[in-house]
C-alpha cells in the first residue's frame, strides 16, 4: 500500500476495531464476574435470612416471587422431598456453601445452609438468569461501540485528510508548475515533519534551477559561437568562387579548409562539453594517469615542434586515480593544447605529475602571456576567453576540463608558476588518489 493516507486509515481502523473487541471481551468477563457475585450475594442473603427461621414456616406466597428472579427454596433433610422438583433433586450429602449443579438439564447456582437445629435447606436460582444479565451487559457495550465505529472512521478520515492538507496543497502547486524555471515551494506554515523535507527539495530545486539556467545560457552562447565560424565559412566559400586567379583560388580553398577544420573542432568541443556534463563518471576505473598523460602529450609533440616549443615532463610519478581514461586524456589534451596555443614560438611548456598527501597533482607550467589575476575566476566559464586572447579557440577547453575534474572529485586551479616572475601560467589539476587495492598476503 503506497498511500500514506490509506495506510494510516487502515492501521487506525484496525487499532480501533481491535480495541473495541478487547474492551467488549473485558466487559463480558467483568459482567460475568459481577453477575455471579450478584447472584451469590442474593442467594446467600436469602439463605441466611431463612436459616434464622424455623424450617418450613408458612409457604412463601407465590405472588411475592418475581418470575424473573426464579429463586427457589427447599428442605434437604426430608425424604422424599415435598418441594417442587429441581431443588428437590439436590443430593442430600452436599456440603454447606455455594455450589453450581446440573439439575434436570439446567445449570443451577445453589446455597446450602444448616440451621441451628441441624435441619438443612437449599436456596437456588437457575444460571440462565445471571447469564442473561451478563449477555445483556456485553450486548449493550458491543452495540454502543458498534454504533461508535462509523463515527470513529469518519473522524479518523477527517483527521487524516486535514493532516495531509499541506501535502495536497504542495502537490497541486507542483502540478501547476510550468516546465520553465522551477520556483521554490513555500516553506511557511508547514508541519515540522515536512519542513526539512521541503527545505531539502527547495535546495534541490535551487541547484536544478541554477543548472538549467547555466545550460540555457550555454545553448544560447553555443548558437552564437557557431554563427561566427559559419559566417566565416559563408564568406570564404564566396571568396573562393570570386578568386581572380589560380594562386588565389588555391589559397582561398586552403582558408576554407582551415575554417572547416576549426568549425569541426568547435563542434567536437561542444560535444565534449555536453558529454562531460552528466553520466560519464560511470565509465571511471582506476588508472595510472601518468601513462595517459605521457601518451597524450606524445600526440601533441608535432604541434609543439611546429612552434619550436620545448614541451616535456619534469616529473611523472605513478598515480592511480579513479577516472574515465578518455576524460583524463581530454583534460591533458585541452590544457597542454591551450599552453601550446598561447606560448610564443620558442617557449617552454613543462608538464608534471606528482603524488603528495593522498592526491595526484597534474600541473602544466608555461612561459606564455599568462592570465591577469582578475580574469582567472571567470575563465572557466564556457566561451570565456582571456580579454587579450588572440589564439583561435571557442573558450570551451577550460570549461570542459573543469567539468571533468569536478566530477572526479578534483580541483582545477590557475595561477603563476612559482619559479617564474610575473609571466606564464600554471594550471594545476588535483585529483584524489584511488583507494589502494586490498593487499593479499
Amino acid at each position, binding site marked *: 500500500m503506497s498511500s500514506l493516507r490509506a495506510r494510516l486509515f487502515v492501521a487506525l481502523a484496525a487499532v480501533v476495531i481491535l480495541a473495541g473487541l478487547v474492551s467488549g471481551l473485558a466487559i463480558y468477563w467483568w459482567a460475568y464476574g459481577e453477575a455471579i457475585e450478584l447472584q451469590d450475594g442474593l442467594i446467600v442473603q436469602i439463605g441466611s435470612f431463612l436459616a434464622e427461621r424455623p424450617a418450613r414456616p408458612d409457604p412463601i406466597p407465590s405472588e411475592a416471587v418475581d418470575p424473573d428472579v426464579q429463586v427457589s427454596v427447599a428442605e434437604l433433610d426430608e425424604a422424599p422431598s415435598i418441594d417442587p422438583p429441581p431443588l428437590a433433586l439436590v443430593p442430600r450429602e452436599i456440603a454447606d456453601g455455594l455450589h453450581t449443579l446440573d439439575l434436570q438439564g439446567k445449570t443451577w447456582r445453589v446455597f446450602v445452609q444448616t440451621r441451628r437445629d441441624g435441619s438443612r435447606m437449599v436456596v437456588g436460582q437457575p444460571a440462565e438468569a445471571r447469564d442473561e444479565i451478563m449477555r445483556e451487559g456485553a450486548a449493550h457495550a458491543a452495540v454502543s461501540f458498534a454504533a461508535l465505529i462509523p463515527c470513529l472512521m469518519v473522524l479518523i478520515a477527517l483527521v487524516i485528510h486535514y493532516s495531509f492538507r499541506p501535502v495536497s496543497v504542495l502537490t497541486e502547486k507542483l502540478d501547476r508548475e510550468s516546465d520553465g524555471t522551477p520556483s521554490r515551494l513555500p516553506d511557511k506554515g508547514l508541519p515540522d515533519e515536512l519542513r526539512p523535507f521541503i527545505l531539502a527539495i527547495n535546495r534541490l530545486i535551487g541547484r536544478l534551477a541554477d543548472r538549467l539556467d547555466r545550460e540555457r545560457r550555454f545553448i544560447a552562447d553555443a548558437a552564437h559561437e557557431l554563427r561566427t565560424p559559419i559566417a*566565416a565559412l559563408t*564568406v570564404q566559400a564566396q571568396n573562393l568562387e570570386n578568386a581572380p586567379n589560380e594562386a588565389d583560388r588555391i589559397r582561398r580553398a586552403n582558408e576554407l579548409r582551415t575554417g572547416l577544420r576549426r568549425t569541426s573542432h568547435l563542434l567536437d568541443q561542444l560535444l565534449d562539453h555536453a558529454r562531460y556534463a552528466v553520466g560519464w563518471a560511470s565509465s571511471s576505473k582506476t588508472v595510472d594517469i601518468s601513462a595517459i598523460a605521457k601518451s597524450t602529450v606524445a600526440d601533441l609533440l608535432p604541434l609543439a615542434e611546429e612552434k619550436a616549443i620545448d614541451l616535456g615532463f619534469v616529473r611523472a610519478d605513478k598515480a592511480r586515480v579513479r577516472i574515465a581514461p578518455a576524460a583524463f586524456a581530454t583534460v591533458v589534451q585541452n590544457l597542454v593544447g591551450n599552453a601550446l596555443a598561447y606560448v610564443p614560438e620558442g617557449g617552454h611548456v613543462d608538464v608534471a605529475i606528482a603524488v603528495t598527501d593522498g592526491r595526484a597533482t597534474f600541473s602544466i607550467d608555461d612561459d606564455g602571456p599568462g592570465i591577469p589575476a582578475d580574469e582567472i575566476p571567470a575563465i572557466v566559464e564556457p566561451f570565456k576567453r582571456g580579454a587579450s586572447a588572440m589564439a583561435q579557440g571557442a573558450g570551451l577547453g577550460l570549461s570542459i576540463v573543469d567539468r571533468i575534474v569536478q566530477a572526479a572529485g578534483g580541483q582545477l586551479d590557475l595561477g603563476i608558476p612559482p619559479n617564474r616572475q610575473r609571466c606564464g601560467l600554471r594550471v594545476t589539476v588535483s585529483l584524489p588518489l584511488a583507494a589502494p587495492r586490498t593487499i593479499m598476503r
Partner: protein
Amino acid sequence: MRILLVEDDAMLGGAVDTALKDAAYAVDWVRDGEAAAEAAACVDYALALLDLGLPERDGLSVLKHFRVARRPLPVIIVTARDAVEDRVVGLDLGADDYLVKPFEVQELLARMRAVLRRQGSGAGAVLSNGAVSLDPATRVATVRDVPVRLTAREFSLLRAFLTRPGVVMSRSEIEERMYGWNEEVESNSVEFHINSLRKKLGPAVIRNIRGMGWMVERTG
C-alpha cells in the same frame, strides 16, 4: 573607398577582408576596440563594419566613441547577437545598419552600398558626372551608353573620383582611398591605373591639374 573592418575573429576577419578587397574596397582590419578607435581617429574612412563582441573595448562603446568624434562615420554592425534589444541599442547608438552573422557576402556588399549611398551627398545608386556613370553594384562603367568592365583597382579609383566630382585629389588622397594599411603601393601605380582608365573610357574623362592632382569634371 576605404573601409574600417573591426572583427576579433581571425577567420571571419580574414575572409571579410578578402571579400571586401575583391569588391574593390581598401580595407583596414583591426581586431579590438582600442585599435578601432585609434584607426578611426587618424584615417577618414568611408564606412566601418563593427563587430560587437570585441576584446579590450566593447563594440557598443566603440560605436559611442565614433559618434562623439567630429565627423560622423557610417557604421554597419556585424554581429552574432540577434536579439531585438541588441539591434535597437545598436541602431539607437547611431549605427546605420545591422547585419546578423552568418550573412552572405552579396548582402553585406549591398547593405554597404546602401549606407554609402545614403551618406553620399544625395547621390543615387549609380555614380555619375554626366559623361561617365558607374554602377557600384556591378562595377560597370558607362561612357556614351557603352558599358565598360573595370578591374578592381580601376573601379576603386573611378569610384573615388565620381564620389566627389569636381574635387581635385592628390596622389596621397587617392592612395588613401584605394589601399589599406598592409597593402604595398607601387610608386607609380596611381598614374598606371589612371592611364588604363583613360584608355578604356577616353582621355578626357580624368583631367590632370598640374602640381595638384587629378579630378573628373562636375558635369560632363
